[in-house]
């Protein structure tokens, strides 16, 4: 038989054909491909705001001078505070914070301008609802920034010289410091993990439950054809999902996509293979579809927590960081953010790529062996 005929008549094709028909008819798969990316994106993109900005702020300005108004302006300009109104005494201020109308209050005492004019240190106060530590730390940073900025201006005006040091912070890659920019590329990784593992493990367990796997094994189809035919469609699902998320991310969250798409799609292969391997492994352990789902979600948890998807890995205790190194998502996030946000190439990404490839090969070898054994 010629190679062409062999290829055309390979038993991989009917398997692939069947998978696609089933996929088209399976609502769950369809939902996972389209609905899940959208929901995840909106949920994580909007809801996870690790950067607390625009704290609602009321002002108690007892100074009522040009200087005090200038301070309010500077505070607002930091972006950390949003003015929602003025209060006229401490009781009203307390009211505003307790009722949740404001979560911060700026108090400028009557002697504020007088102190500045006399060259003394002028005091102002920021009161923060610190029940949420993230908003309070953001308020503290914003207040300090405002004080420094205003202070420097006043000094240089007084001495009629330029400020002695001008330290400018240049945030690269995500200049506006929006958490969506950090999160959305991660959504691609987390989605691929969920879908690859969940679809793969449940699809294979379903064939076993319904007795069709047994039926397949008595046909002349080879094990590689069987597994390839089963897994290749999921690779395509993965790519569709990834494209959907990137498109929506660009549209809704204005995610920068500066790097090479070709490289990203290429380096996604070892990650997808690794995830399919995990799915295959789960299918050899789970006795039914419910168990397969439970195992999949169980595997998701450390991925969400330890991979650096939401919480930066550098802030974790060392053992947690080491555990994170065992997850393919950790490496894939480096690749995703590297390519999408920084536009770096393979020269900067060979380490995570190598790690992913090693992981993919190992997990696939183990799971294929186990899978072959379960079907004898």
């Amino acid at each position: 038989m010629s190679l062409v005929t062999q290829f055309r008549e390979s038993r991989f094709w009917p398997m692939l054909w069947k998978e696609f028909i089933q996929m088209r008819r399976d609502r769950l798969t369809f939902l996972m491909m389209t609905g899940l990316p959208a929901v995840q994106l909106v949920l994580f993109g909007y809801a996870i705001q690790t950067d607390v900005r625009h704290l609602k702020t009321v002002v108690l300005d007892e100074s009522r001078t040009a200087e005090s108004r200038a301070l309010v302006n500077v505070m607002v300009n930091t972006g950390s505070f949003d003015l929602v109104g003025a209060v006229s005494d401490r009781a009203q201020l307390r009211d505003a914070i307790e009722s949740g109308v404001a979560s911060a209050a700026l108090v400028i005492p009557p002697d504020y301008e007088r102190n500045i004019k006399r060259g003394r240190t002028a005091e102002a106060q920021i009161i923060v609802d610190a029940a949420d530590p993230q908003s309070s730390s953001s308020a503290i940073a914003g207040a300090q920034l405002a004080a420094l900025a205003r202070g420097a201006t006043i000094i240089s005006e007084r001495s009629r010289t330029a400020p002695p040091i001008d330290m400018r912070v240049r945030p690269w890659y995500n200049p506006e410091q929006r958490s969506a920019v950090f999160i959305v590329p991660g959504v691609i990784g987390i989605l691929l993990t969920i879908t690859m593992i969940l679809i793969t493990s449940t699809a294979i367990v379903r064939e076993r439950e319904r007795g069709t796997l047994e039926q397949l094994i008595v046909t002349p189809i080879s094990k590689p054809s069987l597994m390839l035919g089963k897994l290749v469609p999921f690779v395509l699902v993965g790519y569709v999902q990834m494209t959907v998320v990137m498109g929506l991310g660009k549209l809704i969250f204005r995610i920068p996509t500066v790097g090479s798409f070709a490289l990203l799609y290429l380096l996604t292969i070892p990650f997808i293979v690794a995830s399919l391997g995990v799915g295959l492994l789960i299918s050899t352990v789970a006795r039914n579809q419910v168990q397969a789902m439970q195992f999949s979600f169980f595997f998701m948890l450390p991925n969400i927590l330890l991979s650096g998807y939401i919480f930066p890995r550098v802030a974790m205790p060392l053992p947690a960081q080491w555990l994170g190194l065992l997850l393919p998502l950790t490496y894939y996030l480096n690749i995703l953010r590297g390519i999408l946000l920084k536009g770096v190439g393979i020269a900067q990404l060979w380490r995570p790529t190598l790690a992913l490839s090693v992981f993919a090969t190992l997990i696939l070898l183990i799971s294929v062996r186990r899978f072959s054994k379960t079907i004898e």
Partner: protein
Amino acid sequence: MTSVGASAPLADAVVTEGVRKVFHGGLVAVDHLDLAIHRGEVFGLLGPNGSGKTTTIRMLCGLLTPTAGRASVVGHDVALEPELIRAKIGYMSQRYGLYDDLTVYENLRFYATVYGLHGKARTERLEKHMEEIGLTALRSQLAGTLSGGWKQRLALACATAHEPEMLFLDEPTAGVDPAARRAFWTSIYELAAHGTTILVTTHYMDEAERCQRLAFLSRGHLIGLGTVKEILEHFKQPTIEDVFIELQKRDEGAAA
């Protein structure tokens, strides 16, 4: 004794010698099984629940590896040449093995292609096949929505689309109405008339009596073998059902 091995293509369709299967945990499902099924025969495998019928079939189809003993199917050793066997046999499992979310035609087409049928030859074969079995009108219906009788016919059609030399049917008529059962047995005899060897398990004694030869299994042991007439004479019973009950009683007595 017929020799086991690939050297004798016209030997019996199935030959087993001392086949034994022990599952993890030490359960002996089949033991000392010596069987020979002739080519073109409709051979019935009888026995109570758990007696090892399915296990036997699964070993012959290459789904399970025998713990001990040798077996050959259509001239090939099950341990050495399972791929050669697979292309030549059809298997209808107790669970039918149909894809509920594929249509009748898609199921047929899928299995036919997996068995190596392509292009025009496949289309023609399937059209003829569906016509014979009466599935043409249902071709676009999802297999999951078929009634039990039609599912069974579709499963048979899927298992025979590649015209196998040997057909394994594991309780093919369980849960199917009498008319469908009769039609099914007509199909089986047609297949046998074309030279297909058939191994069938059943719990219906009227079906057992339609088989050319029978084997009785009890707790994994072969406890009776022969034509219906031979068996009735040998065990001095009026019907196969009486033989079944008598043999089981004896075997349980021996076990106690």
